[in-house]
């Protein structure tokens, strides 16, 4: 029962995280910032706006992106197979990429292109993370991983690799080239409007939930460590976001594939010897 409630409220939790992050970012920039519930005000307002439909596929693909992502989060909360979840998440990313390509807008195309490149960069590492968990606990099931003790120490290099992915996944600088507000005005989301933009907007919150749920897997059954990890990483990501500029897609792929993949493979090699 509690799981169903959690799934239903997952977007709200993500929204709160997003709102808190906006306040935190404003405070870091020496500003007062918006109220904490600002994302929800935005959500209600978007419900009330007139919506333009560019073409039906575009809209449907946007909604599919949202629904798939919610399914991913639901599966995570139910404790399903990690590998399935990662592939299902890839499907949701493919939906948004297809949506980006389905309209006749250059910014949307460039954004979808960059989204695709970043998916190519982070997807292998997500799989390696899953393999790492499998080698530790002998199962891909999240429920099993959650029951075992914390695996952050043996998987420390993988954890570092995963840390590199978080800004890329949440589109924070220095890895926010896929969204790049000043270059391509949001990339794939540019042509969505009104209630359809809402799906993309909430999907962004769900992305937060997804990433941080993956993160706390490293803590296993240790709830205190999970909270500490979550808060620490949340702060760290925002600090880095505030201290760096956006780097180019070329560099993103070099860094992510170069450093994170090496770290991950090293960790796996170490595990297989032990």
């Amino acid at each position, binding site marked *: 029962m509690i799981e169903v409630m959690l799934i239903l409220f997952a977007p709200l939790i993500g929204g709160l995280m997003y709102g808190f992050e906006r306040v935190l970012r404003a405070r870091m920039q020496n500003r007062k910032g918006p109220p904490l519930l600002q994302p929800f005000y935005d959500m209600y307002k978007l419900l009330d706006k007139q919506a333009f439909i560019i073409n039906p596929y575009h809209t449907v693909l946007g909604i599919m992106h949202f629904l798939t992502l919610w399914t991913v989060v639901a599966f995570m909360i139910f404790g399903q197979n990690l590998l399935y979840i990662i592939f299902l998440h890839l499907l949701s990313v493919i939906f948004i990429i297809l949506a980006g390509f389905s309209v006749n807008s250059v910014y949307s195309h*460039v954004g979808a292109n960059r989204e695709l490149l970043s998916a190519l960069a982070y997807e292998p590492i997500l799989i390696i993370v899953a393999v790492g968990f499998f080698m530790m606990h002998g199962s891909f099931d999240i429920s099993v991983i959650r029951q075992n003790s914390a695996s952050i120490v043996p998987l420390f290099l993988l954890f570092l690799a995963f840390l590199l992915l978080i800004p890329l996944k949440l589109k924070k600088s220095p890895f926010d080239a896929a969204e790049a507000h000043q270059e391509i005005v949001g990339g794939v989301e540019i042509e969505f409007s009104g209630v359809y933009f809402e799906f993309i907007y909430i999907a962004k919150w769900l992305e937060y939930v997804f990433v941080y749920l993956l993160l706390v897997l490293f803590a296993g059954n240790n709830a205190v460590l999970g909270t500490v990890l979550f808060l620490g990483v949340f702060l760290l990501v925002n600090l880095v976001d505030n201290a760096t500029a956006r780097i180019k897609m070329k560099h993103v792929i070099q860094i992510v594939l170069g450093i994170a993949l090496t770290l991950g493979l090293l960790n796996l090699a170490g595990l297989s010897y032990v």
Partner: protein
Amino acid sequence: MSKKTIHIPLGSQHISLLEPVRFKFECENEKIVGVDSDVGFVHRGIERACTTKFKFDAIGYVVARVCGLCAITHSLSYTVAIEKLLGGEISKKAKYLRILLLELDRIHSHMLCLSHTCENAGFEAMFMRIMGDRELVMEIQELLTGNRIQFDYISIGGVNRDLDVQTAKKIIENLALVKAKVFSYIDEFTNNWSLSLKFKGIGALTLEDAYRFNAIGPLARACGLPIDVRNEIEYLPFDEVGFKMQTHNDGDINARNMVRLNEILNSLEMCENILRGLPEGEIFTKLKGKPKGEALMRFEAPRGELMYYVKGDGSAMLNRVRIKTPTFACIPAFSHIFMGEEYADAPAILASFDPCLSCTAK
């Protein structure tokens, strides 16, 4: 298989642009191979209005509206050209006050450019930081002239407001604060890893090309071309107040930023010197007569050389007012720099030129 190019438009409305200008980049995989620009969005017809609508004593305030950022340089150049034609000498104090405002304007304009470059490079926190500190300069300008942006401070024969002791004290206080901040920016710009990826070696112009395309302002000084009109005119006593030419050799975005930062430091020093050694005297001398003949006046605006050509025939209406603005002369160089760069860098490169399109199109 022939390579497929995509056309990426930038503007006329775009989040990274303050002004309507349209660039159309022809890109191969985000690499720019062709640039097409349209700069005429802001053309209002000020040159004609100066000769048909307004009398010569009002034009100083009209030409300030050519551009909000270098308003003071516009009205100063025009006013000095008219003063040349009328043939009067203005007091030394007025000259010093004019330099003071000119340099304050340069400081805030350069700070805006730096923050805008950071924002277009995706560094929001730095944008907020510099914009926040820029308010210190805006505050002094408001105290000194009465308005934040369009200060109609300069009139034919002198300046409109005197500087009192309290204001001078406040200016010195705020400038000292700004100075400390500028040093911290220099630190950030040199040491931040992501900014160096974004700025170093990007958008470079060679010295040879700078000569060939007649580049001016910080764009030219960043390539090592020593052109600064403050060095080439004798009307205002720039060498007395401690002007030093700032150049750099790399010619990329980072070099332009460094030139701007060093110029801010130099301007701060000049402002301090002016406030310390402000001569006594009247701030306004009445000049009589109507302009007759032709005069050409150049000044260094924050973006480069600004030229006014004024021709009068002894009546209240002028015959010709020609405004040559800094960005206008740099557009061939801009298009040249964009070639071969990546589209991802285009907004930052554009912001690092500090383009002023409302100057360009008049």
